[in-house]
């Protein structure tokens, strides 16, 4: 299962617990989380489904470069961290 972890800073606004989901791309994994927690989607992605400007995503320790398509393939045991960017505060 892909492990998806969200910045604890989100807890000021809504519950965003760590999740274990199936998904072979970043988008598939995130959408699997949002299927159970639909409010969370708008906190992470913008209206066009891209990662928000001041949110960063790490996949197995590497910062995600493709923030629009989120098409990067992930392994079955990947770790995805959705973090608050330093910018935007």
């Amino acid at each position, binding site marked *: 299962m892909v492990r998806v972890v969200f910045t604890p800073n989100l807890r*000021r*606004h809504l519950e965003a617990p760590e999740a274990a989901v199936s998904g072979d791309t970043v988008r598939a994994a995130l959408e699997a989380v949002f299927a159970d927690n639909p409010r969370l989607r*708008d906190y*992470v992605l*913008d209206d*066009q489904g891209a990662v928000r400007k*001041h949110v960063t995503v790490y996949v197995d320790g590497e910062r995600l470069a493709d923030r629009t398509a989120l098409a990067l393939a992930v392994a079955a045991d990947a770790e995805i961290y959705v973090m608050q*960017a330093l910018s935007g*505060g």
Partner: protein
Amino acid sequence: MSDRIHVATRKGVFTVTRGADGWAVSGVDFLGDHAGLIHVDPRDGTLFAAMALGHFGVKLHRSRDGGKSWDEIAKPTYPEKPEGLEDKDGWGKEIPWNTEVIWSLASGGADQPGRLWAGTIPGGLFKSDDAGDSWALVESLWNDPRRAKWMGGGMDLPGLHSICVDPRDSGRVVIGVSCGGVWVTEDDGATWEVRAEGMRAAYMPPDDADNPLIQDPHQLAMSPSDPDVVWAQHHNGIFRSVDGCGHWTELQDVQPSSFGFPVVVHPREPDTAWFVPAVKDECRIPVDGKVVVTRTRDGGKTFDVLSKGLPQTFAYDLTFRHALDIDSSGDRLAFGTTTGSLFVSEDQGDSWQVVSTHLPPVDAVRFS
């Protein structure tokens, strides 16, 4: 007569109430988060707070119990941008199909229960018929090819900041766009016409100065008692229409300045309106460091400069477009400033009480 004010600031929504000892801050919600706008639905008192979270985007919250509890509701969301579509503003800047800011909220008429309008940056108008549970982009306006002439002003991207619903006919709505002029629908948003004839843009080359599509009304205020009268605080002056936006007339020699952002009109006197001036577009501070409010009672022929109770030395408060309000009685006014001051008047601006000088920067003020 309103005894309560809601103040949207960079660090939360503050409630200010009038007690035995005068006006005082009595509570705060969303402490620490940026509230860009507050709206009070005049039909049932429902409150709406538009949050502008620095990292996590724009959010909309609703309270049906006067602010005791809030629920997050849907926000206006743009549809998927068609593949390959080029959408740029008048400067050539790419328009994101994303709600960057909720810049205006307005309630529909009494005959339209649940109807809300929302104006956004980058310029989309949305409507809801279920009190904000869901929103739809008004595509007739968004797809109008004239929108390509709109351009950003101080906010980089075009934005829709004023929505005036005609109390005689809820299907007639006047909107203001920075920078995109004044637009009117007579059929509940199905079709739109630009109505900025008479406005003048000092920031454009002379040949384009009267182009209605690039006018920068900072805020519009429609008279509730005579909706054909509409006031506009514009980027380079104050304009007024007395024929339902058919033609605009610039008011001359307004002292100490005709630059500013907000305007409010008296609920029963269409010729009476208030403004909060600053020096000029390239110098957005009060003239001579004195905070004043200007008021006309004769349709803009003459203005009173109101300063009693307001700081008159080394004061640099700027008042944004949604940060001045008038209550339903027409006697009480309140305004909040970028330096965290909040002032209230109970005598139509003749004198002012200082409620606070150390709130966070104020974006919006509304009586309820």
